[in-house]
């Protein structure tokens, strides 16, 4: 069957499933809408969390990012998984015991302050909107590449589907749709990975394949990869080029940021008991690890495959591939612009090498008559073109399209839900109209979700310049603002209203300012984004760690000099520290 038709059928089928689930699991109360009635099985919640967490970026871009960064790509692997340890140990069980609907509600109650709650809502909305804009963009891109519709049409279809199940089903609809989306995306990710691993190493498990020998050779795969990339003037694949302090700070910022992302935290409000919340974090990480341990294998293998296609014989001593003899997938991806050939020296051969390495250019490239790197490779191609490079059947390619869309939609829906609950529960019900009934609040939540989808769609279509920096922003802000406030709220009885508010604002403003200073969001960058200019050698991606430390420091010092929290707050803290009684909290 024609690839195009097949893709339409597979993607269309998954949409029918998502909408079917939404109709079946409609929300009937605010409890259903915000936290799925607190009746989600921990394994199902683990799957939903995994789908919620793994975005279009994880699915499409991460393997390619690692393929080109090598060891330095480890910051994403450790950073985006290590956060679950913090979640499971420091946050999830206690927030589940607390038992209300939103993260700002906890911060507002614990710090007996509407100001704290509003600050938390501002942090949450800012974090979630920057994040969701990238997701909607991802939906549009996947649609336009695989289904050949323009980005706007793709976006509108994606918005329509999310609209149906998020507005109708709320958290309940989202949860069960995410379970289905997880299955689609993990299947779509692992099938091509298994095939490419068998082809290169003979080992069907990519996690083991990456540590195996090359099929039909005497070398380890990573050893060979190190050799071929160095032969092209790049740094060794298994060595890093970033400073150690920066690697550590980025990793920690991503970990803490993960644990502070509201749409992830709120997933642990949906399970029935405290012990389920602990366990569920483990299931979530298990489902995430399936993809995250496969991704480095996909990255390394796809890179090796690509280089060996361009340089048959995998050595620059031999002739590279002639442009006229390029394989079919090469032509397909050239049309999308993800691969670009520019014959600098006019010899009709594809010279692909690192022309940013002056030593290599002087010693190797120039004597051989190369006049610059002739192949531009977009990192997204490592996942998207993998099935074609590995010569897999068309249904696998269709599946990858469905997987990419599933990853983007599931994350977008989770984010939209926390935005709408922050608006309807924390702002409208909590501040403006405290007497609003359950029905009215549910309606407000649905309207807020609908409005949020429209804004997200708009941001996806007209991305503000900073969408590319979303990662640094969302994680840095979560790490510097929400995470410390929640942690101190649970583990200290002494931190009071004044300390928490001052701490959150300090962390937020410092991190926001630092990123803006180097990346220039809304304004032109003030200083060049280079290691010489950074504070302690920490890049904007890792600065959330410093913001977090400032938050802790300010909160502790100010709390010491102001009045201790009232007695009922100390009782609240004592209460959330023990599991018993969590089921009773379901009755809210």
């Amino acid at each position, binding site marked *: 069957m024609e690839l195009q038709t097949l893709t339409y059928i597979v993607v269309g089928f998954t949409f029918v499933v998502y909408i079917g689930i939404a109709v079946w699991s409609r929300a009937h109360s605010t409890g259903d809408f915000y936290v799925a009635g607190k009746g989600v099985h921990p394994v199902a919640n683990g799957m939903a969390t995994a789908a919620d967490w793994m975005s279009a970026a994880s699915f499409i871009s991460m393997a390619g990012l690692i393929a080109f960064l090598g060891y330095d790509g480890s910051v994403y692997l450790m950073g985006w998984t290590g956060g679950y340890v913090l979640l499971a140990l420091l946050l999830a069980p206690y927030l589940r015991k607390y038992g209300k609907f939103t993260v700002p509600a906890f911060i507002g109650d614990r710090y007996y302050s509407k100001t704290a709650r509003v600050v938390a809502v501002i942090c949450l909305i800012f974090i979630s909107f920057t994040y969701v804009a990238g997701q909607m963009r991802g939906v549009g891109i996947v649609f336009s590449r695989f289904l050949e519709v323009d980005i706007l049409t793709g976006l509108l279809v994606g918005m329509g589907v999310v609209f149906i199940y998020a507005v109708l089903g709320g958290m309940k609809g989202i949860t069960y749709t995410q379970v289905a989306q997880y299955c689609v995306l993990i299947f779509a990710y692992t099938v091509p990975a298994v095939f490419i691993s068998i082809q290169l190493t003979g080992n069907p498990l990519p996690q083991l394949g990456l*540590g*195996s020998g090359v099929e039909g050779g005497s070398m380890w795969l*990573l050893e060979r990869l190190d050799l071929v990339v160095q032969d092209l003037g790049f740094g060794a694949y298994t060595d890093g080029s970033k400073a150690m302090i920066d690697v550590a700070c980025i*990793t920690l910022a991503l970990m803490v940021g993960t644990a502070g992302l509201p749409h992830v935290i709120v997933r642990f409000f949906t399970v029935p008991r405290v012990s389920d919340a*602990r366990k569920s974090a*483990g299931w979530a990480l298990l489902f995430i690890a399936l993809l995250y*341990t496969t991704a480095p294998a996909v990255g390394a293998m796809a890179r090796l495959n690509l280089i060996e296609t361009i340089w048959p014989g995998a050595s620059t001593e031999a002739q590279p591939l002639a442009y006229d003899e390029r394989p079919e997938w090469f032509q397909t991806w050239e049309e999308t612009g993800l691969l670009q050939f520019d014959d600098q020296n006019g010899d009709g051969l594809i010279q692909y090498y690192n022309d940013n390495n002056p030593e290599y250019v002087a010693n190797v490239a120039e004597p051989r008559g190369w006049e610059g790197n002739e192949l531009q490779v977009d990192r997204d191609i490592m996942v998207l073109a993998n099935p074609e490079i590995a010569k897999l059947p068309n249904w696998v390619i269709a599946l990858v399209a469905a997987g990419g869309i599933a990853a983007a939609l599931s994350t977008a829906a989770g984010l939209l839900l926390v935005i709408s609950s922050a608006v309807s529960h924390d702002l409208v019900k909590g501040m403006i109209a405290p007497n609003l009934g359950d029905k009215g609040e549910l309606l407000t939540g649905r309207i807020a979700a609908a409005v949020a989808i429209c804004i997200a769609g708009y941001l996806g279509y007209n991305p503000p310049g900073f969408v590319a920096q979303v990662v640094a922003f969302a994680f840095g802000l979560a790490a510097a603002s929400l995470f410390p406030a929640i942690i101190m709220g649970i583990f200290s009885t002494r931190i009071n209203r004044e300390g928490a508010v001052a701490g959150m604002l300090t962390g937020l403003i410092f991190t926001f300012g630092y990123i803006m200073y180097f990346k220039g969001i809304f304004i032109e960058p003030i200083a060049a984004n280079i290691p010489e200019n950074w504070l302690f050698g920490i890049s904007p991606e890792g600065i959330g760690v410093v913001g977090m430390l400032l938050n802790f420091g300010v909160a502790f010092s100010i709390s010491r000099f102001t009045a201790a929290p009232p007695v009922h707050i100390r009782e609240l803290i004592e209460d959330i520290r023990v599991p018993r009684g969590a089921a009773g909290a379901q009755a809210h």
Partner: protein
Amino acid sequence: MSKHQESRDAYWKANLRIMAGCLVVWFIVSFGFGIVLAQPLDNFQLFGYPLGFWFAQQGSIYTFLVLIFFYAWRMNKLDREFDVHEE
């Protein structure tokens, strides 16, 4: 201080100890083996993986997984010992 309160404090202290132990392991495998000691560890091989690289891209993730399930199991036991488990 009431007996009830004493038992609650003891439960919380025991929880903090288990938690600290897990976080130490969490820190060692990622920041220790995966980052600070990655270069020296790369002199050892785990099949085709340089060891430091393996910790950074595979081993730390597996360890995180074990840690969370261990903590969940250990805390369930602790909840029962101190009679604060859920009905």
